[in-house]
Each structure stands twice: as C-alpha cells, then as structure tokens.
C-alpha cells in the first residue's frame, strides 16, 4: 500500500454548455496533478469561481452534466478498493460513498432532513455502509457521538431543536460514523460564529487524528488553513499554483498569489497598511495565455505572458508554478508570537 490515498493526474474537468446557440466551454479544472497522503489534513484555498468547488466535486465523484472529465485520472486507493473516479462505474462509486469517502458540508441543514429525527438520518446514511441494524447500529452511533461529546439524546431530536454549533457537530458525526478513510470538508465553518468555529475546527482535527483519515479541507479563509491543515494547495483560475507544508506556505510562500493572500490578512495588534490585490480573477471561458496570474502579478515579466509555468519542486515537499518563484518575498515579516497574543494570557 502506497503512502498516497489519492492520486490526481493531469485532471481536466470542463463545463460544456450550449444555450440557444451560445456555446461556452468553462475550463474549471485545467490540468491539476497532486496527491493526498494518508492521515493528513490537506487544505484547498482559492477565490470563488477559481474552480475549487468543481475540483471538489470531481474528488467526491459528484460529476454531473454540463461538467465532464475531459482528461486525466483521479485514483483512490482505499483498503480493499481501488477506484478511478474518471472511469468508475456507478456501482463502484456507490460502494465507495460514505464507507470510504464522506463529506462535511457548509449548511448542516442541507444534510439533515428538517422533518426527520437525527437518529433516522443516521440510519438513512450509515446503516447500509456499516452493515448494522437495530440495537447494534444504535449502540455504534451512540458510542461515536460520545466521542464527539454529543449526548445520546440528540438522536431523538429534530434538527431545528439544536443550535448551529450542535448541528454542525452532528453532521461531523454523520460523516465520520463509518470511519471513512477520506473526508471532504467543504467550507464547514463559514456560516458559524468565531467561538463556535474554533470549537468545530478543533473537533474535526481531533477526530481526524483519532481515526487516521485524510481530510480535504476547503475554505477561502487563510487563517483557518493556518490552524487546521498540514499542507495547503492554492488554486487559481483552475490550476494548482502552489502547494506545500502549511507553515512554509505562510512564512516562505513561493508564489506571488500565495504571498499576497498571506500578506493581506489583518492582525490584531498590527495597524500597518495592508495591500489589496487589484484586478479580477480571469474568466475561465477565456483564460489569459501564459501564467493565468500574470495580469495581476507584481512580478510578471514577458515570459509569464506567453509560457505556462510548470508546477515544480522549489523546496522540500513544496511545489510552485511560477517562473520567478525564487524572487517571491513574504510581504509581511512573521511576527514574534508573544507580541501578537499580547496581554491575553
């Protein structure tokens, strides 16, 4: 068994549409090669319409027209089951869902049926993959909820009777009850308040370490990535532009876009002017030639306008797709930790 649970190679997923003669091809995922290891939290960051949602849909094997995999492979190597999403049959995908691969979604209400008790929703999702029924199933679920510090009573409750944070914990329980090897968490804390957000993030991390699963964590909030992930990949205009260990990504970014994302984060205790990135993300129906970031890039040179930079190793375990990766400077010097945390202690 190899070290990688998921291997994505040369993945291209396009939306091909035709509305009354207006033909459009949106290259939402354009040549992404990456892999996700066992037992790690891999963060995916990117702006809206950067293609990160489409990429996640492919990983979750939720590919529906007009989206189509045009090229490449998405190979999972689960225990006793190998699946390539690009060529898998519906039966294979069905066999993999929830048992090996599950998701934690943004709105807990979209998973939890508002007119069914939580216990019934657990049965709907998990009874078949677990192969348990009745009391044995209930026992297993209650045991799992205890690990999440949720009382057994929640199984008898309706979703609206729980607070937002509780509901999100229930959806985490739902996603992890079958001990899947791969979990996709798509902006699971975006709608939550700061206090609850931190608690929920801590919970996801805790249970991931407990089970040794791999988690793909998607959010545009870089400060969440900083605290949550082991590695981060940055998607810009349908391409993976940089990936590396979280700490290196924040303190020694090798792509100007990442450097910008990190530098633009405001911090308590620091009132220095923060730079803003001008311009807009490119239209994926007509992406710019060369490096797709060049129209907004402060470091752009002529080469960037014509030649696509490959994603190459720039440091240990750290890859960047930039012709000038050696010239990228962290825009804000890392601060001494105690100054930032100030008088809190």
């Amino acid at each position: 068994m190899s070290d990688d649970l998921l291997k994505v190679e040369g993945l291209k997923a396009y939306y091909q549409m035709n509305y009354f003669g207006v033909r459009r091809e949106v290259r939402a995922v354009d040549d992404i090669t990456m892999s996700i290891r066992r037992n790690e939290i891999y963060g995916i960051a990117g702006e809206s319409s950067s293609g990160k949602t489409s990429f996640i849909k492919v990983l979750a094997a939720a590919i529906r027209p007009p989206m189509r995999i045009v090229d490449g492979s998405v190979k999972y190597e689960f225990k006793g089951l190998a699946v390539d999403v690009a060529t898998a049959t519906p039966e294979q995908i069905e066999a993999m869902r929830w048992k090996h691969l599950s998701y934690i979604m943004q709105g807990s209400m979209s998973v939890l049926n508002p007119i069914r008790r939580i216990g019934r929703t657990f049965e709907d999702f998990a009874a078949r993959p677990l192969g348990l029924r009745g009391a044995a199933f209930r026992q297993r679920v209650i045991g799992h909820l205890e690990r999440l510090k949720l009382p057994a009573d929640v199984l008898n409750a309706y979703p609206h009777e729980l607070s937002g944070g509780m509901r999100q914990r229930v959806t985490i329980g739902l996603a992890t009850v079958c001990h899947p090897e791969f979990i996709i968490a798509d902006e699971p804390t975006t709608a939550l308040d700061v206090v609850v957000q931190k608690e929920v993030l801590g919970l996801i991390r805790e249970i991931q370490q407990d089970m040794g699963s791999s988690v793909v964590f998607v959010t545009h909030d870089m400060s969440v990535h900083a605290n949550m992930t082991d590695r981060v990949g940055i998607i810009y205009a349908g391409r993976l532009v940089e990936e590396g260990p979280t700490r290196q990504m924040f303190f020694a970014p090798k792509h100007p876009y990442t450097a910008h994302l990190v530098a633009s984060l405001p911090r308590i205790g620091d009132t220095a002017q923060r730079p803003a990135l001008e311009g807009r993300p490119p239209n994926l129906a007509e992406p710019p030639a060369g490096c797709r970031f060049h129209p907004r890039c402060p470091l752009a040179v002529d080469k960037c306008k014509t030649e696509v930079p490959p994603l190459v190793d720039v440091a240990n375990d750290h890859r960047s797709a930039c012709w000038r990766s050696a010239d990228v400077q962290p825009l804000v010097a890392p601060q001494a930790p105690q100054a930032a945390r100030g008088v809190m202690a």
Partner: protein
Amino acid sequence: MFSVFRDLIRYNLEFAIGVVLVTVVLIFAGLSFVSPVDPITIYAAIPDMPPSAQYWFGTNSRGQDLFWQMTFALRNTLTFGLTVALISRVIAIAVGLAAGYLGGWVDRVLMFFCDIFVAIPIFPILILFYFVLRSDMNTMNLALIMASFGWPFDARLIRSVAVGLRHREFTRHAVFAGMSAPKIMLEEHLPYVMPIIFSTAMANMIWSIGLEVTLAVLGFTNLNIPTIGTAIYWANNHSAMIVGVWWWILIPVIIVVLLFIGLFLLAVSLNEYIDPRSRLRRMGA
C-alpha cells in the same frame, strides 16, 4: 429582436413547431377578413356535404360552408381567449406585485379579496350573468366577466415570487437609490415574474376557451356569434354524429387542439428563453 427569433427557431424544436402551428391557425383565422360568405347567413350552400374540392371542410346541416364558418369561429374564440388572458394578467400582475412588495395591510387586504374570488364558484355566476344580460352577452362582455375571475390564483403565485424579491438586497438598494415603489415593482421585479406570466397566460387561455365552449355547448351564450363553442352547439343540436355529419364536430375539435398545442409549445420554449436563470447564462454569467 429578429436575432432572438432566429436563434429560437434554429435551436429550439419546440419553438419552431409552435410557431408553425400558431402561424397556420392565425392565417386561418385571418382568412375570415376576406371571406366571401356571411357567417350569419344560413342555407347559403347545399347542406351536409362532406369535405371535397369545392367545400374543403364540407358544409353543415344549416347550409353553411364550414371552412369559412370556422375562420370566423376561430377568430372570435382567439380574440376572446387573448382578451381574457390579457386583462386577467394585468390584474394578477398589479395585485401580485403590490401585495408582495408593499406587504403589511395592503397585502392582507388584497389577499382577502383574492381568496374571495378563489372561493366564488364561477359557473353559476356566468349563467346568472347570461340571464341578466341576455342579448347583451357578447364576446367582449363575457371576456370581461371571465377576466375578473381568472386572476386570483396567478396573483398569489406572483405574490410569492415578489415576497422573495422584496428581501433581496438589490431591492433595498433600489429603495436607497430613491426609486419609487411602482418603479421598483415594474422595473426590478417584473422581469422575474415574466416566466410565470407566460405560462399562466397559456393555462388561462385554455381555461377560458374551454369554459366558453362549455357555456356555448349548453346554450348559455349568444348563439348567433360563431365561435368554436357555438359551432359544436349547433352540431350537437342537429345531432351531427348520429346523422353522419362527423366533420362538423371533428373539424372544430381538431382546430382547438392544434391551437392549444401550438400555444403550449410557444409558452414552454419562450419560458425557457426569458427565464432569468437562462438569460443570465446566455449573458455569460
């Protein structure tokens, strides 16, 4: 405008079929303006002739050329259906948008009236009007009466969309841009309601023409005005099926069916075209 039409014809089969059907029906109805015969005159032709080269649709037992008779009937029926749909759409839009956007007591009062109109049984009312108006019961009067009953369900539907729009941020933005309530309703909200208006207009025409046919068949309209309904009334009155004049019944029915299918296909394809979501996608959003 023309390019829209061309695109629709080229890329949407439903639209193309709908256009062909409705055009044929319209041309047929338009022929009434050049008709050589008067639709009221009876025994101007040999009765009970089957369809032939001389009488394309045959003649009926009252000695009328059914081809020309049907052109008048179709024109009157179409005018009637369109009038009802048009007037009732205007009422439904006004009531629905106002109730949805203004909310509060305006909403409560308008929806109260709406519910009353939903609850009133229309058929006895129409028969009552027939007895009161008698010879004044012409196509236009009937259309007005039907229109005043044809809006409440659709007004509710429009209201539900408008309530959703009221809470969208762009509506509040428009308020703070100093736009007046009518301007917001007609310029900001109406485009979102158009698909509903198209599809309900279709349903409304089917409803009103169907009801007119029913009334006419029972003899509760002015039977001297040729419509699809009165044509069937006279056919029934002369026991057309029993004496073997089948074309007298069959031809009006075929014409109505073609008209309905044509309108339905047009409504469906136009709906898809003007739907805000599909509009936005074409615009490239």
